[in-house]
């Protein structure tokens, strides 16, 4: 039973760590687009 719990815990930890790293990437990539949207630079760039 403890073995299964350990495996499950490690699996959750793995998901969490990989997910957090990927989410950090999402955060950084979307930062520029967010700034453009907020300051209305999207349209100006296209016009």
């Amino acid at each position, binding site marked *: 039973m403890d073995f299964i719990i350990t495996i499950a815990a490690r699996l959750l930890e793995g998901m*969490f760590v990989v997910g957090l790293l*990927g989410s950090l*990437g*999402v955060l950084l990539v979307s930062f520029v687009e967010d700034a453009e*949207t*907020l300051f209305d630079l999207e349209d100006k760039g296209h016009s």
Partner: protein
Amino acid sequence: MLTFISYWRAAAIVLNDLASSAFYACGIAEQAVGKSAPWFIVGVMLFSFTVRAVYVESCSMFVRGGVYRVVKEALGGTLAKLSVSALMFDYVLTGPISGVSAGQYIVGLLNEVMVTADAHGWIPRAVHNIFHGTPQLNVNWTSVVFALAVTIYYWWENIKGIHESSEKALWVMQITTVMVVMLLGWSGFTLLKNGFQHVPLPSPGNLHFTSESLGFLHHRFPGQSLPQMFGVLGILIAFGHSVLAMSGEESLAQVNRELAHPKLKNLKRTAIVIALYSFIFTGLTALLAVMLIPDSVRVPVYKDNLIAGLAMYMYGPEIVRLIFRGFVVVVGFLILSGAVNTAIIGSNGVLNRVSEDGVLADWFRLPHRKYGTSFRIINLIVGLQLFTIIASRGDVYALGEAYAFGVIWSFAFKGLAMLVLRFKYKGERGWKVPINFHIAGYEIPFGMASVTMVLLAVALVNLFTKSVATVSGVTFSAVFFVIFTLSEYANRKKHAKGQQQNDQFQLLQRDTVERESLNIHPGNILVPVRDYNTLTHLHWALEKINTLEQDVVVMSARISRFGAAAYDLTPEQIFSDYEQTLFTRAVAVAESFGKKVSLLVVPAVDVWAAIVQTANNLESSAVVAGVSSKMSPPEQAFNLGRAWEALPEPKRQFVFQVVYPDDHVESFRIGPHSPSMKDEDVLLLHRLWLNITREPGLDKLHHHEILREALTRFAHDYGARDRDDILKELRRLNATDAAESGRGSPNASPAPVVQRESDDGPPANRSS
């Protein structure tokens, strides 16, 4: 009338829920994980930026892109009902936790004021004796009373309608912003003057779980330190205890349908505003609370009103701090009670969506007779909230623990569904969560998968560490799931299988169509609709028109033998199931643009007469119709022109535009107008003008004066001896024209007062 709100209003509604978490999230998290809790709150608020991105993507796919719709598309009806049950648990708890927390702030202040007053001898001895000391209110039960009062107040506000509610939400956020600026500024000054306490880093060694915060795991590993056993698992557990700080993101999906044009851009702006605001407010306030409030009082005294405690430990005179605390309490009361409002709006939106899919009985969605709101759904939600408030007995920690269950599971279902839809959904998608790369022609949604993994990991670990939440959340969700399933079964028996449920409309009956009473401005665009499968023309009109400057009226002519003036038609005779479906589709088109439209049903004997009569009464500048399956656009214009001729004076001209399925448009002018002249006629007129102006005294003659003289002579001849000859000649000319233009029978009558136009857009509002 279907109206939409600005992104500021939308952000205010969502923030009333999301930012209100700042008032209780850190207190709950610190009780569960220890002094390093603020770092987890900051982490959760940063992570909320990515959850917000998931919601933006889902709303860019579906106007009503909440959990239910998305999970249903991706994972099917059963899991959709399960996810929406978890979401309802979230919403039902949002109101009570916010209301009770508001009560805690108020009662905390009142008790402190009484202690101060007693210390100064301002409380009469007799009162002191009655209470056997300083009079103190029972914090939890008084908070319950406050929560009940606030919930009942917002119940009534929502029965009256969302617009009034969004107005208040905006006002509450303006006052909250003033408080946040003061709080952060003064805290910064205090940090410089008084110094600060160290906030332990979020490492496993700094985590201090209680037996309560380990839930079922405490029973499995009694006396053992899980963070030290597993390391990262401790971080995950602590993150799970802090996740309620980002509750409220679902409200973004609920307000999306109310957002004004341009929809996607305004949705993104709303999402950014709420994420930034809540990060600054909730995240920084949590850190400041631990940095400035001494350990000895932070949890024991201020755990349920942490920002009030922060106000009391600012640098400055006590009286000023007490006044600021009073301001904090007022703002806390406003925003937390605003969260009660948002919870009602959000859950009303969710249950309406579920109900549209036939999962809830139609009975729930029938509009209020006076206000047109879905009052039965609101009653159900508020009833559950009132029960929860009383059952909680004012315990914010217990409410918070349970609340996190609904929050994280609705997010987890949402993330999973959106991940599946990346592979399954082939329709329009306005925006995608970033970090997508391609391998062997397949798109790998790395960003979306990452967010989903975090959400699922937190949801699963919370199942074991939040025993109260798991038991109450699973029970509540199961009950709601059973209600949804039984209700859906009953609805399926009632309606034809697979039949889409329609929106509910509130009918306001009038004897005549009058522009002023319908609050429609002159120069509006009238869009007659009949077939709900062909609304291309409404799509075209909404695409071209700025509805802030020009009203769009969607009109359905209900053919009736009684005619337009019949007063005794029942609502069912005027507004049948067909009209309901038709307007449901029309509203969906308007929602997709975020542009307001007015809906109108006109009983009529003749559809053409109804259109021109309505256009005339509303002082419309244009009528925009689709191509008829029975007649060509010129024939449609002819019928409309003939109906216009029969209209009594006074009557107005308008442009009639027929939109083809490929968006090509034919325009006709209805009413007296300058005729279109052929080139040779213009040349003839010009030659005549040149010759005549050479005559003495006629050098300043105008073309129109020659035309007037020619027409006067023509009228004279037509009314006298040359009538037959003139008619013979006109028939010959008409036959020649018909042959040249290839429009068929030379005997076809020209449309009365109809002129073909060449413009491609609806006429601008002439009255503006």
